[in-house]
Every structure is written in structure tokens, then in C-alpha cells.
């Protein structure tokens, strides 16, 4: 079995002492930032990017991946205990999880979330291992026209499924693509939009943009709101183990959540957030058994389903990134950036040129998930203590780590200035209700998109119809157009707005 051989290779890599340590460190750090409200995985990964210069590619990516799925775990802990979702993907967990905690069943809720996530993580790992090779095969058939269309689909998909105004989100993508045009043109060697500033001829660092918008910008907007006072349910986190009845109720929800999450995670723009929302809706629609607690009052299915879904989605969203080099969300965009920093060109060739990295990363996700469950259930007391750290200590720390990270990118103050500037820009976006994640996706994909567009046009001698006459490319573009049309339909539009209203 090729699958088993590949996984064996992966586990061989993941079980070296060094990689275990980095997976552990990543998962720990991820849980930590998931617990702390106001600090997300995007800002944290951006913060750590400068430090991975000192690491090898494999441990570096293992650590960053650990942060991503660790954050999903940590986010659910705070959602259950204090009704404050540490991550956007655990927003729905808070609905029933917090009610369970209020009834003294915090332990069962946390265990359901943890065990459900672990199960979903295992399935997600197998799915990646099974589906990555055939997708990679397909990707090798792609020419520049197909790649361009695929990126259009990826970008459109990313915003169709996101909340907020569609047209503004597409504008943000374009803005990101344009910012990515500040560089030296690869084909002609002409520096563009550099204003004779030598640093700008290499382009703006995406670390500076990510830290500015997601780190500094978010701090500014957090500070502009009055401080909120949180009530922590710490007294009764006993009786961690769920009862047999809990198991019986939660298990089907875990299965449904995992299936849904795995599917939605692969879609561009999907990932953890959408998966959790969809799973909660499905659980609510599934008829309740007699004697079950109603939804919204502490039903264990309302915790197990979305938590399994968001973890499965977090795992499978690695598939488009690993096989095609197309990031489906902002975290994956940073992972693509991390690969580039380590000199690995993301795309279908990663699997054959760096099998150690590819399979090691996949296996490490399973190892990391196992660590998380061992780590989190007994250590919950410690995470709760962390919740009491006031924001006035936290935000200067974030600023310090970001600023040092920016300086060390090129050992020059230039990136620090750019970061500060994008802090201002990020606050402006927040004020105007423009979501910044599509901007980052556009920025990452911009240069790749331009190269593929121009190559496709060169090959077709300037004939734009090449994008619709090649069947694969036409199919991808049609899918993108279909998504936009479907979302614009009045009935769906209303549903979509309702779905995001619950946030």
C-alpha cells in the first residue's frame, strides 16, 4: 500500500525528537493564543515567521501548523468557560458550551470538544494522506491558463463563503493583488511602484502587512472599545469524563461534524469557521431524542458537532495549500509564505521534491492532535489562570514581539515602518467594515497570478479566449462565476446574511 508507505515515512519524520518538540511547542503556543482573546493564529504565525529563518523547513512548518490547530482547541476552552470565543471558529461552541458550564457540566463539555476534535483530527489526517496524491497528479496537467483560472476560483471562493459584503470583499482582493504589484517585474526586470526606494524593489514583505493589519491594527481597534469584564467559570471543572449517555448522544454529532468539516475545509475560503457554523445548523435540524436538553440550553451535540467540524476543516484546508500551492485562507497564505522563506516553491511538486517535509507535516498533525488532548484536558486549570491576565499587559507584549520580528526580517528599520503604516491601514479597514483577510490572499497570490496570466497570453498569442476554450480552465472559471451568481440570488443572499447574523 502506497498510502501506508507514505504515512510510515511521515511518522518516521514526525517522531524524531526535534520534530516532536516543535510540534509540541506549536500546539502549546497555539492553545495559548487560542485561549487569549484578541490574539489570533494569523498574527501569531506572522510574529513567528522571522524566527523560522533559523530552523529547517520541516520543523518550522510543523510548528506553524501546530499553532493553527492548537488555536482551535484553545478557542473552544474559552468559549465554554467564559462565553468568549478565543477564535472566530468557536463562536457557535459558546452557545451550548457555556450553558453546559453554567449547569456545572463544564468538564463534560470540554471533554466532548476535546475528544470530538481528536477524532476529527485523525480522520482529517487520513483524508489528506489519501487525497493529496491524486490531486497532485491532476495539478501536473495544469498549464498557466488553468493555474490562473484556479486562482480566480480560489479567490472568489474565499470571499463568497466569508461574511460581509461580497463586492467589498472582491475589492479587497483586488487591493491585495495591486499591493503585490509593488515589486520588480519578473519578466522585464522593471521595478514597479518603488518610488526609487531600494527596499520597495523587492516588494513589501507580507510579514509586515500581516503583522500590521492583523497584529497592530487589531490592537488599535481593541483599545478603541471599552474594556469588557469577563466572568470566569472556574469553580466547577470537575468530573471531566462525560457519562455514557453523553457519549451516545455526542458520537453521531461527532461523525456528522467530521464529515461536514472535512468536506468544507477543502473548499476555497472554507476552513474551520464555516465548518463550525454549518455543523451547528445541521445538529439543530437533526431531530432530538426524547429527554435531550434543547439547543441553546446546553446540548452536548451543540458542542461536539461544531468542534469536530472546525478541527476537521482546519486539517483538510491544508489540502489545496499542499497540493496546489493555493492558500484557502489567511493562515494558509502565511504557510505558503513560510515555505517561500525556506526556499520551497509551493505547488504540486512539493510532494515529490520534498517528500520528507510533505508526509512529515501530515503525520505531525496527528501527533500534534494527540498531544493536544493529553495536554489540554489535565492542564485546563492552567489555561484558565491565563485568562485572568489583563489586556494592558498583553498588548504591549504583542507589540514588542511583532516589532522585534519586523526588525530582524532584514535587520533594518524599514519593515518596522511598513508594519506601523499597515497598522494604521488595518484600523482604517476596521472602521470602514472592510475585511482584511481577502487582501492578504490577494497579496500572496498576486505575483503568481500575473505570471500565469502573462504566460498564458504569450502561449495563446494574446488570445483571451484561451481561458474559456481549454476545458479545465473553462470549468474552473464557470465554477467561480456560478458561486458569485448563486450568492447573489435573493433567497440565498438572505439566508447568508441570516447565517452570519448569529455571530
Amino acid at each position, binding site marked *: 500500500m502506497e498510502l501506508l508507505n507514505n504515512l510510515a515515512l511521515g511518522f518516521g519524520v514526525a517522531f524524531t525528537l526535534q520534530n516532536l518538540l516543535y510540534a509540541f511547542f506549536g500546539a502549546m503556543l497555539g492553545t495559548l493564543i487560542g485561549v487569549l482573546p484578541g490574539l489570533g493564529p494569523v498574527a501569531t504565525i506572522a510574529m513567528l515567521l522571522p524566527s523560522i529563518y533559523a530552523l529547517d523547513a520541516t520543523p518550522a512548518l510543523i510548528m506553524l501548523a501546530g499553532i493553527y490547530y492548537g488555536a482551535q482547541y484553545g478557542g473552544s476552552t474559552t468559549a465554554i468557560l467564559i462565553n468568549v470565543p478565543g477564535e472566530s471558529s468557536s463562536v457557535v461552541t459558546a452557545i451550548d458550551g457555556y450553558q453546559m458550564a453554567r449547569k456545572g457540566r463544564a468538564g463534560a463539555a470540554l471533554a466532548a470538544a476535546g475528544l470530538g476534535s481528536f477524532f476529527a483530527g485523525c480522520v482529517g489526517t487520513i483524508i489528506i494522506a489519501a487525497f493529496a496524491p491524486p490531486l497532485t497528479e491532476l495539478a501536473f496537467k495544469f498549464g498557466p491558463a488553468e493555474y490562473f483560472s484556479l486562482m480566480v476560483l480560489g479567490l472568489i471562493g474565499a470571499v463568497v463563503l466569508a461574511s460581509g459584503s461580497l463586492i467589498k470583499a472582491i475589492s479587497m482582493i*483586488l487591493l491585495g493583488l495591486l499591493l503585490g504589484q509593488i515589486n520588480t517585474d519578473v519578466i522585464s526586470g522593471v521595478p514597479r511602484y518603488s518610488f526609487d526606494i531600494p527596499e520597495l524593489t523587492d516588494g513589501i514583505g507580507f510579514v509586515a502587512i500581516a503583522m500590521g493589519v492583523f497584529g497592530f491594527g487589531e490592537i488599535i481597534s481593541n483599545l478603541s472599545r471599552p474594556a469588557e469584564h469577563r466572568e470566569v467559570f472556574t469553580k466547577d471543572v470537575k468530573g471531566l469524563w462525560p457519562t455514557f449517555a453523553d457519549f451516545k448522544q455526542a458520537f453521531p454529532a461527532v461523525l456528522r461534524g467530521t464529515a461536514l468539516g472535512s468536506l468544507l475545509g477543502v473548499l476555497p475560503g472554507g476552513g474551520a469557521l464555516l465548518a463550525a457554523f454549518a455543523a451547528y445548523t445541521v445538529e439543530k435540524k437533526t431531530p432530538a431524542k426524547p429527554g435531550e436538553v434543547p439547543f441553546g440550553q446546553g446540548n452536548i451535540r451543540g458542542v461536539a458537532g461544531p468542534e469536530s467540524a472546525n478541527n476537521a476543516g482546519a486539517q483538510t484546508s491544508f489540502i489545496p495549500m499542499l497540493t496546489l500551492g493555493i492558500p484557502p485562507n489567511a493562515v494558509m497564505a502565511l504557510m505558503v509564505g513560510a515555505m517561500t522563506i525556506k526556499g520551497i516553491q509551493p505547488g504540486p511538486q512539493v510532494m515529490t521534491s520534498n517528500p520528507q517535509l510533505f508526509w512529515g507535516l501530515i503525520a505531525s498533525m496527528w501527533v500534534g492532535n494527540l498531544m493536544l488532548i493529553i495536554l489540554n484536558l489535565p492542564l485546563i486549570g492552567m489555561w484558565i489562570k491565563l485568562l485572568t491576565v489583563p489586556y494592558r499587559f498583553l498588548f*504591549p507584549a504583542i507589540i514588542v514581539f511583532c516589532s522585534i520580528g519586523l526588525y530582524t526580517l532584514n535587520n533594518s528599520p524599514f519593515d518596522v*515602518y511598513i508594519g506601523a503604516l499597515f497598522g494604521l491601514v488595518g484600523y482604517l479597514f476596521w*472602521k470602514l467594515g472592510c475585511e482584511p483577510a481577502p487582501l492578504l490572499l490577494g497579496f500572496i497570490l498576486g505575483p503568481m497570478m500575473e505570471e500565469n496570466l*502573462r504566460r498564458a497570453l504569450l502561449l495563446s498569442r494574446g488570445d483571451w479566449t484561451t481561458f474559456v476554450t481549454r476545458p479545465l480552465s473553462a470549468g474552473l472559471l464557470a465554477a467561480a462565476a456560478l458561486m458569485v451568481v448563486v450568492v447573489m440570488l435573493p433567497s440565498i443572499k438572505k439566508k447568508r446574511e441570516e447565517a452570519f447574523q448569529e455571530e
Partner: protein
Amino acid sequence: MKIKSQRDFWSGLMFIVVGIAFAWGAAANYNFGSSARPGPAYFPFGLGVLLAILGAFVTLKALTIETEDGEPVGAWAWRPLLWICLSIAAFGFLLPKLGMIITLPLLVVVSAMAGDEFHWKDAALNAVILTVGSWAIFILGLKLTIPLWPSFLGA
């Protein structure tokens, strides 16, 4: 004409301005080429025009479609905005000259002033912890070359 959504109106204007700026910058400075041989201006020009068009749509929508509360932009939080951005920029400027030992506590204390709750004791404590911590992580642990002492000390 009354603006129905302040937020969308200003975002639309922002998109129009940025789109036109990029498109104009491309057309004025770089070679456009042709569809068969696209030049460096080809892609950014197209993107800029597209962004300006979408921006116009957003603006138009903000002027015509009724919203519940007019979606106001709201007051600017000048203090956190300026305090944070300027303290970071100043950190970048001063770090090569004064070293981490001086600039880092400065960054912590000044940026802490952006918050509503500011206490000298807390900020000082935080500054000490973060400076020692950063030294341990970045210089001792990751061995990054960050100036620690002021350059005039000739270290």
C-alpha cells in the same frame, strides 16, 4: 443626495482612488505591451481599472440603498492609533542607535499609554519582563543579531 451608508461610501471612494492611482501609475511609467506580449503595466493597469469600477459600484450602492442606522464610521480613536503607530515607528528608528536595552522599555511604556488603564508600576514591570524575555529568546536563544547596547558605547 444623502449618503445612506457612511462606511460603504468612504470604502468605495478609497477603492476608486487607489485603483486610479495604480492604473495611472502603470500607464504613465511602464510599458503596457500588447495582449500577445504583455508588458509590466498590463496586469496592474487592468487590476486598477477593475478596482476603480468596483469602488464606483460600492459608492453608488452607499448612496442609493437604505440602511437601518446609516452605518456611521464613528469617532476615530486617535490616541491608540497615534500612540501605537508612532511608538512602533520610533522603535524602528531608534533601535540601531540606542540598542534594545533602551528602546524596548520605551516601546512598552509608550505603547501602554495608548490603553485606558495605564499604571506606571504595571508598565514598568511589564517593560522589565519583556526586555529580559526578548533578550533571552531572540539574542540568547535564536541568536539573532539585534543591537543590545547603544552604539555610542562602542560595544
